[in-house]
């Protein structure tokens, strides 16, 4: 008998296609798993509205469940409640930093849109906090570009949302 705990553990095998050290559970993209009439129903939510990884994540979840013997798994996408970096697991943040991406510092996005203070971001290479933002938009929707002023290494920062 398959339990929701089994399904959660299978979700730990599915990685974000753009940040392959994080599982969809670390990211907080999987919101719920349920079994309805012997059929798994997975609820996911996008990080950003236009996140191009969502289709791939959905396909990978379906493939995983099919491989575990389910014929007709369902993946539902919900927008509410809106995803926030606050849902990223501590383990996920640690893995991000080891991978070379600075994890989100502090809480979700500052609502004061104009001239907001920048977060203190620690360089994932030398751990210095003497860093500066190069651009608030980076290689994917969820990242900003930073540079360390001590070791001079440019790096990605997973920005707060």
């Amino acid at each position, binding site marked *: 008998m398959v339990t929701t705990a089994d399904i959660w553990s299978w979700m730990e095998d599915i990685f974000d296609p753009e940040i392959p050290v994080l599982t969809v559970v670390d990211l907080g993209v999987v919101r719920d798993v349920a079994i309805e009439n012997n059929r798994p129903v997975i609820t996911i939510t996008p990080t*950003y*509205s236009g*996140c191009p990884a969502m289709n791939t994540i959905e396909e990978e979840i379906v493939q995983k469940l099919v491989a575990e013997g389910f014929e007709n798994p369902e993946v539902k996408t919900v927008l*509410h409640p809106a995803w926030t970096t606050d849902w990223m697991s501590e383990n996920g943040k640690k893995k991000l930093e080891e991978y070379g991406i600075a994890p989100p510092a502090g809480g979700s996005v500052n609502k004061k849109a*104009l001239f907001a203070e920048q977060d203190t971001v620690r360089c994932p290479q030398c751990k210095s906090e003497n860093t500066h933002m190069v651009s608030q*938009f980076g290689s994917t929707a969820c990242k900003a570009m930073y540079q360390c002023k001590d070791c001079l290494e440019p790096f990605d920062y997973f920005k707060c*949302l």
Partner: protein
Amino acid sequence: MDIKEALFKYTLRLGDNSLILGHRLSEWCGHGPILEQDIALINVALDLIGQSRSYLAYAGEIEGKGRDEDAMAYLRVERDFYNVLLAEQPNGDFGRTIARQFFFDVFHFLLLEKLTSSTDEQIAAIAVKSLKEVTYHLRYSSEWIIRLGDGTEESHRRIQESIDELWMYTGEMFEMDEVDETLIGVGIATDLSALKPLWEEKVSEVLKEATLNQPESGWMQSGGRKGIHSEHLGFLLSELQYLQRTVPNAKW
């Protein structure tokens, strides 16, 4: 006008603003003045197109005729698009794009703040999600207005020209008609006339910081929200819709 009809049109207006402005920004891909700004503009484009997908999918559900978000984006004709004229204006130089973005971002931010408490759950959910993204957009365009306005003599002159020329497209964002009135009555839409002073306050604060002159409010362009567009939208759609028009039902 019944609520369903009003909600369908209202949702299309929201979705079309994001889709058309998102498409315009996407035209910068590979053409940005420097790599970081190329990436930034495309990130904003991606957010907007993602938002439009949520709205257009919802519009299709409300309509109940089996049209999905792709049918809405790729198979409607020009007169069935309800975006504001500002969104479809050509990119021009980087400053022109930033001026257009700034005017829209301030409006968009204020609108979404209100829509987060819409009585329509889906509109509210899209607004909560989009507001987080638009907060970054507004910060980006505001900072660039200041940088260009308070920059060199040439950047100041060029951004001022763009602000002056785009100003006449800003009034339309606050227009209301039967669609809005029907939905304000049931708490789905928000009263745009209440947003206008807030918009003016924010715009004037940033323009002042940027040492730029705020144009006097004069005659304003109008029409996009009713489907009557500038000549630019047709050209934009011919590119956006080319594939589905040429090879109908093509799949990726």
